[in-house]
C-alpha cells in the first residue's frame, strides 16, 4: 500500500471538516472494497478519515411506516432487521445474495452504494481503463466482457455497478441522505445517485467532493409481492450476470402495479419507470418491460446472453409472484 495518514473522527460534522482540511482524503467505513483497492494501488488516498465511530449505526422507524437506515449499519444488520424482513423483504434478499458472511458483517450501507466496479480491466494495472486512469482507453469493450454492461455504457466504459443492495433500493424508491463539506444536507433519490459513464467514467456518482452519505430512507411499505433473483456463474459468493428486484401487486391474475430494477446490466441499477406503466396483463408484462427497459441496448458478443436471460428470468419471477 502507498503511505497515507490516518485519523479517527466521532461525528459526521467532524468527518466533513476533516475532509475539507486534507487534500486527497477518503472516508474509510467497512473498508472491504477500499482497502482491497489500496493494496492493488488502484485507490491511492493520501489521508484516511475513519468514520467507523461516527454513529449513524441504527435503523429508525418513521410514524408513516417508512424507515431510515444509518449509513454505517452493516449489511448483515440490515438483512436481519425485523422491519426489513417484514416490509422490505426484497432488500433482505438482495443483501444476502451478495458477498460472503464475513464481508456482510463489515460492509456498510454507505460503502455498499459507493463500491467500485469489478470489471477485470479496472483491476489490471497494466491495461487501459478510463475509470482507473482517465483517458487511457477501455480494454473491456473488445476484451472479456461477459459480466459487463449491455446498456448505459459508452465508448469509454462498459463497467457494471456490482451492488445487489442498490438494485433493491432502486425498486423501493430509496432516498440517499448526505451531508456536504459546507454542512448542507441533501436528499438524493437513488435513481440520481449513480451517473452513467459518458466520457468521464471515473465520475461514478452525483456526490460533490467530500459529501458523506449519512443514511438511506425507505418510503412506507407498498402492497404486493417482493422478489430478488440473482443469476451468476457460481451458486454463492459471485457477482451477478443478471439480477432482478421485483415489487408486484396483483389483483387476481391482473397487475395493479409493478416495479422492476435490474442488476448486472448497466453502470447503475437499471430501472425504466416508463416501461412499468400500463402493464395490466401479467402474462405479457415481462416481455413488455424487457423490450422497453432495454431498448437501444448495445451488448457485446460476450454478454449478449444477458438480454434473453433477463427476459426469461423476469417471466419466471412474475409468474411465481402472481401465485403468492
Amino acid at each position, binding site marked *: 500500500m502507498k*503511505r*497515507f495518514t490516518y485519523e479517527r473522527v466521532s461525528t459526521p460534522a467532524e468527518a466533513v471538516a476533516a475532509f475539507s482540511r486534507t487534500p486527497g482524503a477518503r472516508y*474509510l467505513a467497512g473498508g472491504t472494497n477500499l482497502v482491497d483497492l489500496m493494496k492493488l494501488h488502484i485507490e491511492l488516498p493520501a489521508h484516511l478519515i475513519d468514520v*467507523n465511530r461516527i454513529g449513524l449505526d441504527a435503523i429508525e422507524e418513521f410514524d408513516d411506516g417508512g424507515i431510515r437506515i444509518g449509513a454505517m449499519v452493516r449489511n*448483515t444488520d440490515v*438483512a436481519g432487521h425485523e422491519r426489513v424482513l417484514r416490509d422490505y*423483504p426484497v432488500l433482505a434478499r438482495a443483501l444476502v445474495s451478495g458477498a460472503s*458472511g464475513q464481508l456482510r*458483517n463489515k460492509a456498510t450501507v454507505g460503502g455498499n452504494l459507493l463500491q467500485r466496479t469489478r470489471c477485470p480491466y479496472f483491476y489490471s494495472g497494466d491495461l487501459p481503463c478510463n475509470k482507473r486512469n482517465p483517458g487511457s482507453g477501455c480494454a473491456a469493450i473488445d476484451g472479456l466482457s461477459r459480466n459487463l454492461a449491455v446498456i448505459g455504457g459508452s465508448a469509454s466504459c462498459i463497467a457494471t455497478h456490482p451492488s445487489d443492495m442498490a438494485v433493491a433500493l432502486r425498486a423501493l424508491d430509496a432516498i440517499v441522505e448526505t451531508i456536504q463539506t459546507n454542512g448542507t444536507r441533501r436528499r438524493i433519490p437513488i435513481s440520481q445517485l449513480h451517473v452513467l459513464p459518458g466520457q468521464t467514467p471515473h465520475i461514478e456518482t452525483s456526490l460533490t467532493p467530500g459529501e458523506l452519505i449519512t443514511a438511506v430512507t425507505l418510503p412506507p411499505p407498498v402492497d404486493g409481492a417482493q422478489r430478488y433473483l440473482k443469476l451468476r456463474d457460481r451458486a454463492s*459468493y459471485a457477482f451477478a450476470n443478471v439480477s432482478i428486484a421485483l415489487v408486484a401487486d396483483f389483483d387476481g391474475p391482473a397487475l395493479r402495479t409493478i416495479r422492476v430494477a435490474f442488476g448486472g446490466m448497466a453502470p447503475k441499477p437499471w430501472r425504466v419507470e416508463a416501461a412499468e406503466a400500463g402493464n395490466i396483463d401479467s402474462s405479457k408484462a415481462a416481455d413488455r418491460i424487457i423490450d422497453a427497459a432495454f431498448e437501444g441496448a448495445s451488448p457485446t458478443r460476450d454478454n449478449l446472453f444477458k438480454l434473453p436471460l433477463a427476459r426469461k428470468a423476469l417471466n419466471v419471477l412474475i409468474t411465481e409472484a402472481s401465485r403468492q
Partner: protein
Amino acid sequence: MDTLCEAQEDLVAVSFVVNGERHTIEIDPRVTLLDALRNNLHLTGTKKGCDQGQCGACTVLIMGRRINSCLSLAVTHEGDDITTIEGLGTLGSLHPMQAAFVKHDGLQCGYCTPGQICSAVGMLDEIDRNVPSHVSEDLHAIEKTDAEIRERMSGNLCRCAAYPNIVAAIREVMETKP
C-alpha cells in the same frame, strides 16, 4: 535512516483486547489486522491465504462477529474485543467447534481450518440472531440444514475440498447447540 524516521512519525497508537488480553501497539496505519495479529502479536493461528477477502483463511471474530482480518486495517480496531483461533480453545480445552472438526476430520492440510472454525462459530451466532441467508426459504424461520451451512460458509475456501467433513462438523455443533 531518513525514511525510517519519517515512517515512524506516521505510527498510530491502537489498543485492543485479543483473546482476553489487552494490547497497545504503535503501528503503521497500512498494517492490516491480519498482519498485526501475526507479526506484532505473534498469533500465527490466523492464516494469510489470498489477502483479498476471498478465501476466508484470515477470519477472526470482532465482538463475536466474523470478519476477514486481511481487509481491515489494525488501527481501525481501537477498543475492540478480538477473538482468534488461539482464544477459542486450547489443546487441553477445545472449543466444541474445534472438537467437531477433529472428530469429523474436517481438514486435510489444515491451512484453512482456523478460518473455517472462527467463521463457523460466527455463522451459528448469526443463525441464532435470525439473520437469513440466500437459501432461507422463509425469511422468518431459518431451518438448520446442510444447504444453510454451505451457503453461509461460502466465504471460506478449502483447497483440499474437505467440505463434506467440514459440513458434518458444523452440523453436529449446530444440532447440539442449546
